């Protein structure tokens, strides 16, 4: 379980979980779940396009996730944000369908990106992914205060001269960066589960932002590690465990929240 190709799986999943936990914390805080779903899904079209013209799919993923981020942010500024996200998403998916229709050759590979291939990561791919991960973590660390302020108290942020739209765009670009690195590994569909479940659960346990961010990373690591172990032992797809465990974490978080509220009420009565 800890030898051969599994070493790569453990390493890469650790990197992915750290990034997903950190970026996901702000996804949940800002209510950006829809962009977090749309960018990885739309980026998948970029991989199809890259296969068509014969360049590295990672480049296609990067370009398209960046395009999706900028598109969502500029369209969302002039209309309803959720509508803008939905339309940007379907437009990119439709482009992907058009690319795929022109060649049948890469179809399995490109569709494989939807669910990813955690156990098939080559050693030479770890370094570029680790570098992108460092970029994401640094970006989140730099943007930490402005992100927090614009999400929680927009008026204070405005008064301090922060420009919410600029921060929003910057955040979507970070999301795009995180997408590019994680999609080939865990797939477009599951990175989303990892960005929502653990951070949303973490917020149920604590209301202090710093602690919640740390808890979110820890929970994401827990979810990914236990998923890999279960998938290895049962031979079922790892995506199933990631999806279920992330939802399970949130369920536990909500139960804790309800119990804690009941406890404090009882203490207050006493």
């Amino acid at each position, binding site marked *: 379980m800890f030898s051969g190709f599994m070493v790569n799986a453990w390493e890469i999943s650790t990197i992915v979980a750290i990034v997903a936990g950190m970026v996901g914390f702000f996804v949940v805080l800002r209510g950006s779940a*829809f962009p977090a779903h749309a960018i990885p899904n739309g980026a998948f079209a970029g991989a199809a396009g890259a296969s068509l013209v014969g360049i590295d799919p990672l480049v296609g993923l990067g370009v398209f996730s960046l395009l999706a981020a900028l598109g969502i942010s500029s369209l969302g500024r002039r209309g*309803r944000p959720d509508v803008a996200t939905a339309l940007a998403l*379907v437009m990119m998916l*439709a482009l992907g369908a058009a690319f795929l229709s022109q060649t049948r050759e890469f*179809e399995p590979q490109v569709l494989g990106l939807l669910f990813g291939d955690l156990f098939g990561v080559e050693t030479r791919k770890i370094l570029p992914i680790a570098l992108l991960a460092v970029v994401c973590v640094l970006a989140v660390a730099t943007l930490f205060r402005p992100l927090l302020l614009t999400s929680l108290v927009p008026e204070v942020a405005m008064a301090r001269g922060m420009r919410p739209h600029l921060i929003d765009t910057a955040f979507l670009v970070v999301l795009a960066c995180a997408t590019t690195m994680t999609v080939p590994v865990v797939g477009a569909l599951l990175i989303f589960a990892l960005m929502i*479940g653990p951070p949303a659960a973490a917020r149920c346990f604590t209301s202090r932002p710093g602690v919640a961010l740390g808890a979110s990373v820890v929970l994401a690591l827990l979810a990914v590690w236990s998923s890999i172990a279960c998938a290895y032992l049962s031979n079922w797809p790892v995506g199933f465990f990631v*999806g*279920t465990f992330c939802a399970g974490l949130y369920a536990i978080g909500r139960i804790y929240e309800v119990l804690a509220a009941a406890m404090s009420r009882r203490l207050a009565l006493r």
Partner: protein
Amino acid sequence: MQLLFEPGFFSNASVRGALVLGAIVAVVSAAVGVFTVLRSQSFAGHALTDVATTGGAAATYYGVSVLAGFISASVIGAGSIEAIGTHRVRRRDIATGIVLGAATGLSALFLWLDSSTSTTGATQQILFGSIFSVTGSTVLDASILGAAILLVVALLWRPLLLSAVSTEIAAARGIRTKLIGLLFTLALAVTVGLTSIAIGSILSTALLIGPAAAALRVTRTVVRAVSLACALGIAATWLGILFAYDSKYWSSSGNALPVSFFIVSIVFFLYLLTGLPALRRRFARRTPTSVQGTRPAPQAASAAMRTQ
């Protein structure tokens, strides 16, 4: 005429099936879509297509009706979203995300269990749809379900509209806003389940959100928005089908471009077009007083402020 319609367009049975199904789906999606956009439920509208797909995969595995699988999964998903959290918009977003994540995980499992059959083919079929391979029974199912959905929307019309404008006013008038919200979300779930199996999940979202959002930008009453959205939806669908049919003759390779690509591009273009300031100003001037009444509470108001 010959330039526009390549040979055999009207005599082709699958084209005729596609035109009929496309029109039904466009009308149902437009009516439901206007309220989906007004209530800011676009994310749920899209997420339910993926949840429905999970149901489709499960139905294939257990060997039951795929249509039933799509619709029941979508309804269960919508119910879970409502159960997890409804009061705050941001929490509703997370609830949708959690349900979507869990559904995706289940879908990975069922696709893996199904893998005796060709899964990539099935995945692609569901995701990108195949309006051209419509059978008579699909058209019948779609018309019956579509009529039922339209009936529900018509019955809920006034309370829905009022609670979309202001939850407080609606509640003060004795409307049970939570119940109305739940009923609408269930109608949305049935719509999405139906359209995602009929035309694929990309087109399902595109036709639900696109025409409705475009229509809401240039009309000032909901009745007009729904009618315009229906017209735009049908126009986009039919033009898309025509282009897709013709595209076979465009290149020497004979590789037709997918119909979803054309329909989505037209819908996207319509949305951008209706966002042009000149066009919006013109419509706004024509009926300057009735602006309120089509926009929901604070969120949309601030969005409207930003666009000025």
